[in-house]
Every structure is written in C-alpha cells, then in structure tokens.
C-alpha cells in the first residue's frame, strides 16, 4: 500500500505546529497503525529528519498509552486502540490525517504526544480505595453479587487513554471520571468513600480545565473499551446524592 500522511508536527509545547505531508510506500495491510508510523520514522531517520514522536507502550490494546486522532476519529475508524488498528482498514492511495488529542487539559508535548497527567490528578483525588495494607484478604471475605461485580468490571475496563476527551467537542473528561466513580462506588470496598470520591473527583476534573458534558455521546462511541454513556448518568446521580447528603462528611 502507498499512502499520503498528513501528520501534526510540533517541536515542543511552546512552538506552533502544522500539518506536514509525508508519503509512505510498501505498507503491508497486516501492519498496525503504529508499525506504519515506525516504518515512516525509519525512513525519516535515514533521511536525517526528526522522527514523529508518539506515545506507545504495550501495543496490545490494554495500557492506554497510544492514541491519536486519525481522520477525525479518536483511535481511527475501528473501535479499538491505535496500536490494534490495522492498515487493512485503509485503502491503497488513501490520504490519512493524524493529529494529537486536542484539549486544553491535554497540552501537546511534541508532535502527537500530549500530557495526560490531568487524568492522574483526577485519579489521585479519589479514584482509589483506602485500605490498610497487609496480606491479601480472602476472596470470599467481602461478598459481591455477580451483577454488581460485572457492572464494576465493565467500568473498570477504562484504560485512561483519553479518547473520550479527544472526541468530545467540549474536551470533557466526564466519561473517564464516571468510569472510575462507578467502578468503585458500586463495590462494597468503595462504599466508605462513596460521597467524598465523587465530589472530589468532579471538583478536580473541573479544576483541570476539562469542559462539561452536553450529552453528545461522542465519548462513548470513541471509547475503545466500550465504557457506556450511562456511566455519566450514574456519576451525576452519585454527585447529586452526595451533595444532598451534606458533602464530604468531615
């Protein structure tokens, strides 16, 4: 396959960037999108140019490190991560636009790499369960009904890739935050911090400069892990419940 790539190139956070056109030839349809970029980078390095910077780690679709907007869609045309997107979903001669996640809370570091530490700060404000460390508890010590465990797991699948923020016209982190809130709030282990968790995480989410939710549903369509849009409704419910209960119970 021969392709024309239009890739966002930006040397660093301070300098302006631009879409730059490259041609790649001899691309196999069995390559992943990242392998195709590796191929481009090898050519760029041999030519003495700066390779395109992009985040990647496991390349198995489970770590959430990779992510770019391909032809206007987060992670491209298939519902998967960029590393698991294969070139067979493109046609010979295609022009492919590749851009970084765009959000005020995700500043571009270089080329296609953005700083997603705003997500870490949201998790740090409540996306955990405070428990004494020690030996692992027995699996049956805290009974969890199967439907509840399934619900928690469905939301725990979030890998924090940021596609929801990238797809949202408001750059909102509601789907990400709600996935973690629902995951922990439905479980008995998360119950003692149920109110403070949702209030603190929403507050941090707002502080980080993410936009609000206008229920466009673009996040849930882009999510490679299929976090449902109902997660946002569930987080809204948790938030209002915690607010009416009198806040954080200091």
């Amino acid at each position, binding site marked *: 396959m021969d392709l024309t790539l*239009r890739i*966002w190139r930006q040397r660093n956070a301070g300098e302006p960037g631009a*879409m730059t056109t490259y041609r790649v030839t001899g691309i196999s349809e069995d390559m992943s999108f990242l392998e195709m970029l590796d191929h481009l980078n090898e050519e760029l390095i041999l030519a003495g140019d700066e390779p395109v910077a992009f985040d990647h780690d496991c390349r198995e679709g489970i770590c959430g490190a990779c992510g770019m*907007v391909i*032809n*206007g*869609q987060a992670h491209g045309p298939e519902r998967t991560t960029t590393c698991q997107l294969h070139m067979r979903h493109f046609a010979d001669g295609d022009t492919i*636009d590749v*851009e970084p996640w*765009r*959000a*005020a*809370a995700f500043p571009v570091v270089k080329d296609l790499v953005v700083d997603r530490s705003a997500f870490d700060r949201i998790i740090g404000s409540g996306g955990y369960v405070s428990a004494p460390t020690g030996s692992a508890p027995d699996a049956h010590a805290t009974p969890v009904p199967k439907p509840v465990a399934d619900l928690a797991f469905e939301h725990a699948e979030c890998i924090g890739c940021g596609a929801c923020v990238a797809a*949202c*016209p*408001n*750059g*909102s982190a509601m789907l990400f935050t709600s996935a973690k809130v629902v995951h922990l709030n439905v479980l008995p282990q998360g119950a003692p911090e149920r109110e403070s968790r949702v*209030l603190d995480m*929403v*507050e941090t*989410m*707002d502080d980080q*400069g*993410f*936009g*609000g*939710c*206008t*229920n*466009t*549903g*673009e996040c849930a*369509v882009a999510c490679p892990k299929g976090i*449902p*849009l*109902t997660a*946002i*409704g*569930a*987080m*809204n*419910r*948790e*938030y*209002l*419940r915690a*607010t*009416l209960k*009198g*806040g*954080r119970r*200091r």
Partner: protein
Amino acid sequence: MALATRTDRPPSLIGSVWRSTVGKKAVMAVTGMIMLAYLVAHVVGNLKVFFGAGEFNHYGHWIRTVGEPFLHYEWFLWMARAALGTAVVLHGVAAYQLSRRDLAARPQKYARKRQRASYATRTMRWGGVILGLFIVWHVLDLTTLTVNPNAEEGRPYENLVASLDRPAVTAFYIAAMLALGLHIRHGFWSAAQTLGANSARRERVLKFLADALALVLTCGFIAVPVGVLTGVVS
C-alpha cells in the same frame, strides 16, 4: 496551649452546586423541566383557540382568577411568571457559563473532524438563543401587547389573530417552534441523564418520550399560526 479551633465552614450547598459543572447542569435540567411542564399546559390552553373567541378569552380570564378566593386576582399568574422568569434566567446564565467553559476546553480545532452528534444536539446553543429572543418577542407581542397591532387588553383571541395575520411574524413563530422541538428532543433526554435518571434499561423509553414530547409540542404550537393562515381561526 489551646487546640486550634476549626473556623472553616463547609461550603454551602447552593454554592458548591453552582460552582461545579455537574451541579450547574443539574440547575439547567431542573429549570428546563419546569419550563417543559409549563409548555405542556401552554399548548393545551392554546388549542382552545379552535373553539372560538368566547372559549379562548374565557380561558384567558380564568388564568387570572385561579386560586380565588384564597389568592387575590392575578396572584397565581404573577407567581407563575416569577417562577418561569427565574427558570429562564437561571437556564440561560448556566448555559452561557458552561458554554464559555466548554469552548475554552477545546481551544484548538481538529484539521479534520468527523461529526457524529445529531442535528438537535449540535443546535442546542444557537437554538437556545433563538428561543430566548422568541420569548422576548412573544411577551412583547401577546402579554404586554407593546408590538401587537390589535393591543386590546382582555381580548387575547383578537390580539392573537391580529398578530399572526402578519406573514413575517408567522414565519418567525414557526421557525422558533421548530427550534423548540429540536431543543426538547435533546434537552429532555439530556436532563434525565444529568439528574441521574437514565440507565441502560430506561434509555430507549426516555429517548422515545423526548421525541414524543418534542413532536406533540411543536405540532400543537404550530397548529395555531397554521389555523390563522388557513382561515380556520379568524
């Protein structure tokens, strides 16, 4: 040494709700629901126009006497106006502040973006502005009668027919009602989601209800200018 006394007070309920995006959206949802409930009553009242001037004007008079003798003449009407006015202002201010925030959260546009959201979803902001302008016109036209060509106090039927006899007004009215339908279509389901009433099981029912409400209200409201236009109401 005495222990330090805690002097910080927990933030007030209203303050913390208004400050957060989720809380502000809840304000929009509740005020939107208040306005929607009013519109259902409004459309029922409007349809009396098809039963003649007598019935319509009698209804217009009755609204002023609701609650008597417990309430004084027009008290109920003014309470409703105060509630609706507050709802409109809160809804608009919250929408403005949230929109400012949303636009700031995506400072750089994509060179290429596949639009997936529905037309109703994408037109919420400008549709809302059109509805706001329509409300101002509507009140000036049929409540204060400032811009009404008939402007006869206590004769709403005659004022309505005189107003809608102007094609430009009728066109604006119909356009605003189409915007209203789109606004409700996304707004009703959105409010349910914001207030946490949505779930995987209820989603289809809520979306159907939103479509049904939008359709019934739009058709109901448009029936009046169409009636005047076709001479059924004159």
